[in-house]
């Protein structure tokens, strides 16, 4: 984090066009060669979905950065961009906090490189599932939906993805530039703030309006965070009954072992997953032997092994973005269990994924004297 005073101010939204305003801001940076490309959500020609697009021509910069939908992990896209090391020119990436947190984890796991990545974090009042967004966006544009969510429109809010309803970190932390909409009249102006020297460099060359709202904004953010923490606590409590062998097997009863949850997870970065490897393949005779031991078993096998094994592999870095749940073709509400497992496991190590780049991932380090009860001493 920068030690100098961050640059903060208001960006006027002309004609209530939120998307256009941010697009113009980004196009300006492109035009001045401050950045070479922008990765931001953009409405697809069909008009019913917004997908991240890598845009490098200022004229083509038609971002829809507030579209309340998260079709794929943006953190994974940054990982793909930087697979072979840092890119040679600067790219601005518009991200929501869950994805920024996932990116922080990927950097710590040495899977992504954020040198030359300018993270532009947007306040997130939540996202809809892909299907819900498709239906909603037929009649309403993203700005309309986003502003309504900011105003906590009851009808819309209850249709958000459960991961978003129970998210307690909707405000970006580890970004270069924050685009804030909580606590300001977002239809008229957005709150911009630099969080790193790179962000400061960019914002200080802009003619931002003095922000008379900084204090009000801070208060509003605290208010939002308080409300969201309560929502998360409610969610965890409601689903605390999913516990015990029978309840857990019932919970995953419709799982078809497609592993979509793993495929879309920003944290599951392995090129080849243990669960798709030959390690769990048994021949026919072994299977019949296995059947004899219990009389019968379900096929395909290893449903519980997959879910619990995956938890052991990724849960300490799980940012609870809920993309797994969104990708589940049989609509298992995965977050109801995953959020509890993540919260408990991360608390054991006093670790919060995405909190800081410096904080080591618990399984990569150890203390000589710790958890001594585990070894029976």
């Amino acid at each position, binding site marked *: 984090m920068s030690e100098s005073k961050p640059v903060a101010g208001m960006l006027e939204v002309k004609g209530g066009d939120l998307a256009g305003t941010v697009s113009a801001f980004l196009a300006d940076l492109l035009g001045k060669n401050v950045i070479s490309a922008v990765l931001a959500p953009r409405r697809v020609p069909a008009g019913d979905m917004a997908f991240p697009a890598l845009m490098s021509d200022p004229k083509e910069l038609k971002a829809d950065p507030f579209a309340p939908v998260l079709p794929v992990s943006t953190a994974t896209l940054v990982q793909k961009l930087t697979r072979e090391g840092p890119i040679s020119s600067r790219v601005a990436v518009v991200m929501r906090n869950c994805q920024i947190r996932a990116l922080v984890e990927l950097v710590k796991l040495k899977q992504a490189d954020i040198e030359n990545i300018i993270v532009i974090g947007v306040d997130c009042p939540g996202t809809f599932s892909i299907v819900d967004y498709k239906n909603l966006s037929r009649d309403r544009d993203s700005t309309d939906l986003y502003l309504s969510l900011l105003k906590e429109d009851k009808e819309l809010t209850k249709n958000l993805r459960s991961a978003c309803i129970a998210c307690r970190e909707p405000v970006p932390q580890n970004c270069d530039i924050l685009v804030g909409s909580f606590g300001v009249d977002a239809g008229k102006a957005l709150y911009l703030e630099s969080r790193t020297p790179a962000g400061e460099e960019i914002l200080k060359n802009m003619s931002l309006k003095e922000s008379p709202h900084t204090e009000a904004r801070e208060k509003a953010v605290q208010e939002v965070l308080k409300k969201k923490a309560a929502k998360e606590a409610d969610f965890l409590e409601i689903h605390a009954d999913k516990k015990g062998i*029978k309840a857990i097997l019932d919970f995953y009863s419709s799982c078809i072992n497609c592993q979509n949850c793993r495929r879309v997870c920003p944290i599951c970065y392995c090129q080849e997953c243990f669960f798709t490897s030959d390690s769990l393949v048994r021949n026919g005779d072994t299977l019949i032997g296995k059947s004899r031991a219990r009389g019968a078993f379900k096929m395909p096998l290893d449903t519980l092994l997959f879910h*619990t094994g995956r938890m052991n592999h990724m849960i300490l870095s799980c940012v609870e973005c809920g993309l797994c749940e969104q990708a589940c073709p049989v609509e298992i509400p995965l977050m109801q269990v995953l959020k509890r*497992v993540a919260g408990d*496991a991360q608390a*054991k190590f006093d670790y919060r994924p995405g909190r800081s780049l410096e904080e080591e991932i618990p399984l990569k380090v150890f203390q000589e004297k710790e958890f001594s009860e*585990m070894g029976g001493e």
Partner: protein
Amino acid sequence: MEKEFEPRIVGFLCNWCTYTGADLAGTSRIQYPPNVRIIRVMCSGAVDPTYILKALFEGADGVFIGGCHPGDCHYLTGNYKARRKMVLMKSVLETLGLEPDRMWLRWISASEGQKFADTMTEIAEEMKQKGPNPIKEYWNV
């Protein structure tokens, strides 16, 4: 007469310490309950949680992981990492309500044949008290 429940325990023993310790127990003719099925691994740190889960879900009543004492790891830090993995795994099982007390991690050196025998006795006794792994009742695992 009804047969007493004999727990089946899968033991992952590190090659350098606990496996050699078990060997010593054998060559010293120390008696211990025959409930453990030993799998030799190169390091306790090499035991992925998935191995333990698979054993439990396929019907093992308990899983034992044996490694070198802290500071004695042949690979310097493997056992410290095993310890953290076990903390994580027990936490996951605890949250899911899947009986984390069916797993043990113990440090047994190559010279501790008696400790190995004592540990096996302790685990077998505890498991007999606890009863069979209830997951064996389910075909839809």
